[in-house]
C-alpha cells in the first residue's frame, strides 16, 4: 500500500491510518442480565503521520487515549481498527524477525521511572537487557551502553551501574530509562509523560537531555503530556486529543498563538502565563470529561463546547486542513 513512497525523502516514517482501540470492560450483573458487553473506545479513528526527525507533542486530559495511542505506535497494544505503517511496512502481522527489526527502531520511554525498571536487576543488567532481547551482536554491547550513558549525562555512572533501582533518585532513574531506550539506537521514540512523576527541580534536566538527543540523533519523537508548556518546549508540532479523537494538529507555535479548536483554546487559556499582556479570550468549557463508555454522538466535545449547535450532535467533524499544515476537527472553523 504505502510501500511505494518509502524512497521519497519526505515520506512519513510512521503513518497512522484510522486507528481505533476498543477495550472490553468488566460486565456488571446488570450487563449480564441484559446481555450487554460494555466497551470503551480509548482511541477512535485517529490518523496522523510523522516525518523522520520530527518531534510531535500529544496533549489532552487524562483518559483521552494519548497513552493508548502511544502504545499502539510501538506495537505494545494491537489496534482494533485501522493500521500503523512504519517506514512503509505495516507493523501488524510481522514475523519474529521483522518484529525484532521494528523493536530496534521504535522505543518507548515510560512515565513512572520507579516502575519501569526491574527491581531485581542492577542498572547495568537493565541497560544490557534490551541489547540481548533485540539480538544486537555481543561485541557492540559495551560500546552502545557507554554511548547511551554519555548521551543522558549520567554522572558517576560507574557507581550507579551496580546499584539497584530503589537506591537511586527519580531523576537518575528516568535518565536510565531513557538510556535503556537509546542503547538500541532507535529512529522513533514515544515518550509517555516522561517527567510527570518527577520533582519539578529535575524536570528541566530531563527535558533538556531529551530535546538534545532528539535533535542530535534526528529522532522522530512522540511526546505525550498533559502539559502544553512542556510540549511547547520540546516539540515543533502539537496534536490535541479529546476522548480518543484528534481535534487539532498543527505547528506548536500556531497552535499556542492561535488555537483553532474550542478545546485547544480552553487548554491554552488554562496554561498559567507569567506575561500579563498576553491574553486569550477565555473560552469557558462546561463540566468534566464525559463518560467514555457513552461518548456524545457526533462531535465528542459538543456537550462541553460553548459553540455547539444541533449540527454537532448529528455530524462528526472531520480533521481538515484550514491553515498551512494546521488541521482542526470542528464545524465552525474556517
Amino acid at each position: 500500500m504505502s510501500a511505494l513512497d518509502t524512497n521519497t525523502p519526505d515520506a512519513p516514517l510512521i503513518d497512522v491510518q484510522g486507528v481505533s482501540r476498543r477495550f472490553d470492560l468488566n460486565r456488571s450483573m446488570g450487563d449480564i442480565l441484559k446481555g450487554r458487553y460494555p466497551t470503551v473506545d480509548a482511541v477512535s479513528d485517529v490518523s496522523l503521520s510523522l516525518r523522520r526527525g520530527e518531534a510531535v507533542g500529544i496533549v489532552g486530559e487524562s483518559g483521552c487515549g494519548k497513552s493508548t495511542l502511544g502504545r499502539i505506535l510501538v506495537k505494545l497494544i494491537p489496534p482494533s481498527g485501522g493500521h500503523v505503517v512504519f517506514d512503509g511496512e505495516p507493523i501488524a502481522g510481522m514475523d519474529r524477525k521483522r518484529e525484532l527489526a521494528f523493536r530496534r527502531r521504535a522505543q518507548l520511554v515510560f512515565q513512572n521511572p520507579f516502575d519501569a525498571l526491574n527491581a531485581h536487576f542492577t542498572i547495568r543488567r537493565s541497560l544490557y537487557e534490551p541489547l540481548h532481547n533485540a539480538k544486537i551482536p555481543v561485541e557492540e554491547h559495551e560500546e552502545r551502553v557507554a554511548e547511551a550513558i554519555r548521551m543522558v549525562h549520567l554522572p558517576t555512572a560507574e557507581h550507579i551501574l551496580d546499584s539497584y533501582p530503589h537506591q537511586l533518585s527519580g531523576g537518575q532513574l528516568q535518565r536510565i530509562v531513557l538510556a535503556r531506550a537509546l542503547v538500541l539506537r532507535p529512529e522513533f521514540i514515544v515518550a509517555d509523560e516522561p517527567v510527570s512523576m518527577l520533582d519539578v527541580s529535575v524536570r528541566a534536566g530531563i527535558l533538556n537531555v531529551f530535546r538534545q538527543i532528539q535533535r542530535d540523533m534526528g529522532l522522530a519523537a512522540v511526546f505525550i503530556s498533559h502539559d502544553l508548556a512542556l510540549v511547547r518546549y520540546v516539540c515543533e508540532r502539537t496534536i490535541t486529543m479529546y476522548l480518543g479523537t484528534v481535534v487539532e494538529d498543527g505547528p506548536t507555535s500556531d497552535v499556542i498563538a492561535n488555537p483553532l479548536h474550542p478545546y485547544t483554546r480552553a487548554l491554552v487559556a488554562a496554561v498559567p502565563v507569567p506575561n500579563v499582556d498576553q491574553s486569550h479570550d477565555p473560552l469557558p468549557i462546561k463540566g468534566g470529561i464525559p463518560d467514555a463508555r457513552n461518548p456524545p454522538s457526533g462531535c465528542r466535545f459538543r456537550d462541553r463546547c460553548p459553540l455547539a449547535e444541533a449540527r454537532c450532535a448529528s455530524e462528526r467533524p472531520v480533521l481538515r486542513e484550514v491553515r498551512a499544515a494546521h488541521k482542526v476537527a470542528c464545524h465552525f472553523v474556517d
Partner: protein
Amino acid sequence: MPQAPDTALAIGRPRTNVFKSVSRSLGAVFSVARRDPYAAVGLVIYAGFALIAIFADQLIHNDPLEILFTPDYDLARNLPPSQDFWLGTTYSGRDIYSQLIMGTRSALIVGLTAALCVVAIGTVIGLISGYFRGWVDTLLMRIADIALGVPFLPFVIVLAAFLQPSQWNVVIGIALLLWPNSARVIRAQVMSLRERAFVEAARVTGAGPWRILFIHVAPNVLALSFLYASVAVGWAILTEASISFLGFGPSDTVSWGYMLQDAYASQALGRGQYYWFVPPGLCIIAIVVAGFFISRGYEEILFPKLKA
C-alpha cells in the same frame, strides 16, 4: 554526537548470576529474623534440626533398627532411660534415642524435598497461568480445583498401595496435591506484575514471552514462593508422620511417625513409657511450629499491611 573523552568509563558486562535473586530472597529470611523474634526462634529450631540431621551418623549410639541385648544376653526390652540408652529402649529392644536422631534426617528430607516440589510446580504453573491467561489459565486452574478437591490422606494411602511403601510416596502426594495453593497466589501476583511498566519495557525491547516470564517476572514472585515453601515443609512432615502412624509408611526407614506407631502398637502408654512417644511428638510439633514462625515473620515483610 558529542565526542566526550572516554574517561575510562568502566562499563563491564553484567554477570548473569542465577543465584543472585535466590540469595536475595533468602537473605530476606535472615533480615526478618533480626526484626521478628518468632522468626528468629523458628530459624534457630530449623538450624538445630538441620545440624542433627547432617551429623546423625556421628550422634547415634546404635543402629536405630538393630535389636539390642544386655550384657547377660537378654533382649534389651523396655529399658528405662539410662547411661547407655538415653531414652530407653523399645519393646523389640531398639535404642529410642538413635531412632529419634535418625528420624530427624528422614523428616527433613521428606519435608524439604516435598516443599521444593510444591514450590517448583506451583511457581511454574502460577507463572504460566497468570501470564498467558485465556484458555491456558482456565485449563490449569480447573486442574488445580480438582487437585484441591482430592482428599489428602486417602490419596497418599492409595498411592502407597500402588507403589512400594516408601517415604517418597508422601513427597509425591504432597507435590501433586499441595501445589494449587501456591500456584493460585503466584498467578494473582503475576497478573498484576504483567501490567507493570518494567514488563512492558521488556516487551518493547523484543523479549519473548518465556524470557519475560522467567527472567523478568519470576524473581519478583520468588519471595512468595519461599513463603509457601516454609508452610509446605511443615505439612509434609505432619503427613509423613500420619502415614507412618497409620502403618502405611516404609518399615526400613525410621521416622518420628514410625516411632509413634511402634509405641502405640506396643502399648507404651499403658506401661508409662513416656520417654518413648513424647520426644518424637515434641519434635514434630517443634519443626512444624518453627516453619509457621518463619512464614509468619516472612509474611510481615511481604504484606506489611496485614499487620493487625
